[in-house]
């Protein structure tokens, strides 16, 4: 019952924000796949040591944390702006 009333194409700023939200959605999927990567190393004698996996996993973990921090900071701007515009049209929400 709620067809998209938003315009088909967006300004550069709003376009960028949408893509940041997309990145936030895709991040856990990428992280999940990358965390499973060590499973593929089994069998190759050169690279299935615990130390190597340890370094890989914790390195990936740090990268994920940093990426998440950056994305979340940009999403903050996004949310505030959108709330403002909504408030202009509808007044404060019912809550």
């Amino acid at each position: 019952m709620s067809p998209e009333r938003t315009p088909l194409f967006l300004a550069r700023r709003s376009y960028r924000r949408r893509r940041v939200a997309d990145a936030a959605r895709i991040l856990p999927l990428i992280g999940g796949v990358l965390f499973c990567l060590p499973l593929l190393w089994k069998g190759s004698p050169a690279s299935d040591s615990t130390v190597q996996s340890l370094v890989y996993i914790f390195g990936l973990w740090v990268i994920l944390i940093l990426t998440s921090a950056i994305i979340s900071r940009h999403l903050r701007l996004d949310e505030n702006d959108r709330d403002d515009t909504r408030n202009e049209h509808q007044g404060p929400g019912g809550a």
Partner: protein
Amino acid sequence: MTVLNLLILVCLLYVVLLFTVAFAADRAAMMGRGSWLRSSVVYTLSLSIYCTAWTFYGAVGFAARSGLEFVTIYLGPTLVMVGWWWTLRRLVRVGRSQRITSIADLISSRYGKSNLLAVLVTVLAVVATTPYIALQLQSVTLSFAAFAGTDPEAGTLPDMQSTALWVAGGLALFTILFGTRNLDANERHHGVVMAIALEAVVKLFALLAVGVFVVWGLSGGIGPTLDRIETSAIARFEVSGSRWVGLTMLSAMAFLTLPRMFQVLVVENEADEHLRTAAWAFPAYLMLMSLFVVPIAVVGLDMMPAGANPDLFVLTLPLMEGRDGLAILSFLGGFSSATSMVIVAAIALSTMVSNHVVMPLWLHYSGMAAVVSGDVRTVALMARRLSIGGVLFLGYVYFRMSGGGTALAAIGLIAFVGVAQFLPALMGGLFWRGATRTGALAGLVLGAAVWLYCLFLPSFGPSAILPQTVFDHGLWGQGWLRPRALFGAEGMDPVIHALMWSLLLNVSAFILGSLLSFPQPLERLQGAQFVNSFDHPSAPGGWSGGMAQSEDLLIMAQRIMGAREAQALFAAAAGRQGVVGYLPEPSPDFLQELERALAGSVGAATAHAMIGQIVGGAAVSVEDLMAVADETAQIMEYSSQLEAKSQELARTARQLRQANETLTQISVQKDGFLSQISHELRTPMTSIRAFSEILRDTEDLSPDEQSKYATIIHDETVRLTRLLDDLLDLSVLENGQVELNIQTGTLEALLDRSVRAAGGDGDGFRIRRVRANEQVDLTTDLDRLAQVFINLISNARKYCDARPAILNIRVTVSDGQLVVDFVDNGSGIPTDKHAVIFEKFSRIGQTRASGAGLGLAICREIMERLGGEVSYLPGQKGAAFRVTLPLMTDRVAAQEAV
């Protein structure tokens, strides 16, 4: 002093510190100074209850047994937090807008406020969490015993059972003290959250300290440590793919559905802002928690004697090296992990048990008790306290029965699989409008049954609960029903086996049940609100009001939320509707708002049922259904709008009729007063005239007679003067020509004076006061204020018809407002007269006592001049008047300055 004694002392000091911190945080929040209590950092730290003692000690043991696999338990939550934009944001938004109190409440709320679902979720949560609590008790006693074991001076080992009992008792006390402060589960438990945040810091610091000691103290740096790992028993990365993926998914699911995680993630969340910080800060916390796990495990395997419990390496490594200080710190870390988990789990479970099991039963057995008798608030709080005690007692009993054996060690993952059964109903409810109550019930029941049969019951060992024959040949001799090899899936890891089958069957039953059933109207309405939580921030109304009695609603709300909050809510709603006083029109919007507010205290299902008792059934209006049923014809939409308009008109007409009635009554009273006043003026006049004529015309009056007649004339004149004074007083007040005489004094002295002037108590009239509350300094026109008090007290004395008549004078100060309530125990004032009692010349009924009906009108004018208000307070047992006065008004301040 021996190490063991030192440990006990440090432990006690730490507990005292926790109580102090919780108490201080509660106090700060109460004084309104606690804005930092609501910060994102505290929120992130409170999430750390995910890391229980099972993590603190068990992760090292896990790593010592199966290498890097332990890390999956932290990768799952990391992925969930990183992907907060998808799930958590929606969950938190819905949780706040629907005032959700627990995961059971959320699921029941989504599927048409079904209490059956809530009970099911509650029972499953209790079954899954009880062993988990037992595990925490075990870890504390084990670590205690580890200390005692190394202490040569300790005469006897402390009794494990009694240690566990002390810990359980202390935790119950703490949780009851700080976890049931307020009934509204949506209000944050500041004290508890603060204590948990502190414990989060302690356990992280402790684990990092042990890690640093192991890496740099025992192994000689990072390089040698890595070499040591290369040559250890867990050097090869030998992880089964299914367990790696399965456990990561399992921990991600459990992170969302564990009752205690739901409590801190959703219920105690106050703003989206917190999620933004936690999105990276909590994964960082998890990463730091697991950073040193492998080194500790490897060094432990290397240095400890064979057969040492790897679960206790965190503790025994420093002990063996003689680092008692570090060992005590490590003990505190484990103690913190255990206690914080138990506290929050007990709060979450007790909320669920009291809201979804105890309260519905109590309401059922006390019939219409919500309206008639009993204090719901006390019952609810008591239920919650008893539930906390009950949950901890269950945990302790489980610990004793299982004997603290190894069976407990595996319980962490088993509990995870149990609570993961909530996930299909939870996520399906948030993202799929087609999900129905039938589907959710079917999925939950089937999933829980498979979990019990394949994982929980077998965990007690063969022949403990399930006989050996069932393990070997399946239920009723059916080979495909063997609990470890359901449908012939042999050779799988038991946890993954149970996870796969339970979730597969759960999801299938959920989808099939939803597709085949048709939802109730209320379900569809809730479904639309949950799924479209971002598109339609304001919810459509749920009640068709009109029949409801606002006063009944107020009485009920007072019993649940407490008098002050309820009155504030009603007064605010009345203000928005433009109605004076405490009783708003029972419009659908207001009923919806009231239901939400009540849901915060007793859960959605109970709140719905209680309002239903008063309003009477009709829960979904045509208008609401129209919003749900998408493509229905425009004409029906139009007719429903017409209906809504006509309802609006009916309401307006009722308000107009009310206004008209008030006017008519006033006019009748005015006529009545005119004849009354002519009568009142005429009677003394007649006697004055008669007696003065006698004095003038009679010659031989004795001095006695003369003085008697003169006295009569004098008395009558005094009476006339008093009446005219009142009238003059009123007109002066009304015209605003009055001059205030500002003085300072205490309320107690003022009330003393007023009570004396009104005739004191005695003669079957008693006044009850709480002098401790009356120590308030006032700066206002004390004489005028006393006039108001005297009037209210003497009114109660004159009109209260109870024997003995009792007048309660209650004083409260809130938000810079002095509130004095005068409540008597008589039959009160009928609702239809509330509007007119403050009008001039109004006299209720044919009263026995004399009076021109000017007293309350004068009171109202005086209070208006003083910047306060006097109003009738409905919903009490007898007549009740409320005087409110700002403690320092601008007007008074301005007058003082002049």
